[in-house]
């Protein structure tokens, strides 16, 4: 029982990661892919924070009469990782906006088709 409860968080977080990754791969909409990546990343953040938790611990802010603090290092790492995540998301969204302006679609399959046409056109032009 203890073993199951002790690993419960990990199991759920892994499920979340799998779902996030599934959205990235299965969906062909660019924005939804990006949301999938964000879900995947946030799940990894939860994993890290779970490492740092001590049962009965306190937030790592020094207060009188408290001895047990949760581990501050994962918190620091994840603060950095959150920033990195939002940076990637914003660049990704900006790219999507540009892609939509250039291709008229935000659907990966459509864009691939258009790309193929472009290639075909280029090849034909080069032979003539």
């Amino acid at each position, binding site marked *: 029982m203890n073993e199951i409860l002790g690993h*419960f968080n990990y199991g759920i977080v892994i499920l*979340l990661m799998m779902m996030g990754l*599934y959205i990235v791969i299965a969906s062909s909409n660019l924005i939804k892919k990006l949301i999938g990546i964000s879900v995947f990343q946030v799940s990894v953040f939860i994993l890290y924070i779970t490492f*740092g938790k001590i049962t009965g611990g306190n937030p790592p*802010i020094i207060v009188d009469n408290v001895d047990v603090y949760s581990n501050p290092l994962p918190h620091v790492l994840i603060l950095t990782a959150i920033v990195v995540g939002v940076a990637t998301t914003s660049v990704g969204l900006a790219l999507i*906006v540009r892609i939509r302006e250039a291709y008229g679609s935000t659907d990966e399959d459509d864009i691939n088709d258009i790309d193929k046409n472009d290639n075909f056109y280029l090849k034909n032009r080069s032979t003539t």
Partner: protein
Amino acid sequence: MIANLELVIDICLLAFLIMIVFASIKITDLFAVTMLFGIFSFVSALLFLDLDAVDVAFTEAAVGAGFTTVLMLSALRLTTRFENVKHRHSLLGLPIVILTGAALLYGVADFPNMGDANAPIHHHLAPDFIRLTQQKIDIPNIVTAVLASFRGYDTFGETVVIFSAGAAVLMLLGMGHVERKQEPEKNLILWVVVKPMIALILIFGLYVQFHGDFGAGGGFQAGVIFASGFILYSLVFGETYARKVIPATILPRLSALGVLIYGVTGLMSLISNKPFLDYNALSSNPVGGQHLGILLVEAGVGLAVFSTILLIYYSFSGREVIHYE
């Protein structure tokens, strides 16, 4: 008793998260998915709070639930709202996903139990951080101490990451043109309520900036909150006015200035031949030097984050919508 309660909350929140993600797989309306993602971020922030990570919870709430959602909505305005369901490769994804999940499960099997105080990570570095923060830095918030002093180099990198994101978005979208944009209509209730709210938000931002040594918060969260005040102003009163308050053209420079403040603070210690980011060199009293260094560095982070976030928002909102048939 409290520990058990924490566990119950933890399980409930995780169940919420699973439901939210499951729903967002199913739903094809991207507006709804975006809102669900906002809720997802917010619930995970609560989870972080439950797991004692107050600073992380704060950041996730401000960034994930707040800014990212706004950004995604701005992007949706410029793109299409519905996903094409026909183009789903459900089968293609499954093997990779299952393989990854299996690898993760395999790896996690040997982990120490969650919350186990005897796990190696709680014995190797963490006690030193807690002890040294009290001895040499003397601020209550250990996370801020580790962030700004022990691992200040990482945080410098983080500031540069956000700066580079600003540069990247600016390169992609430009600063936007407000002249041709439709301004929001006048709404008296919003106008009246939002004015004091913005004042409150800005004061709160300053509080978070300077209170980061003592409680949850710091430059990053403060920057996001400060920027959100201006974003609110721009949403309610129209972007033309917002850009009069803070012109978009100075934002990249402010962001660069933030990075420079951080970097130059680090370089100051080189003058007395101490390593980069050694704040002890900043003052004759090492503890005072640490305080000063953390203050300066957090100011740099706050400035860089505030201006970059606002810049990214301007870039998205100033872009014109192109309609395709």
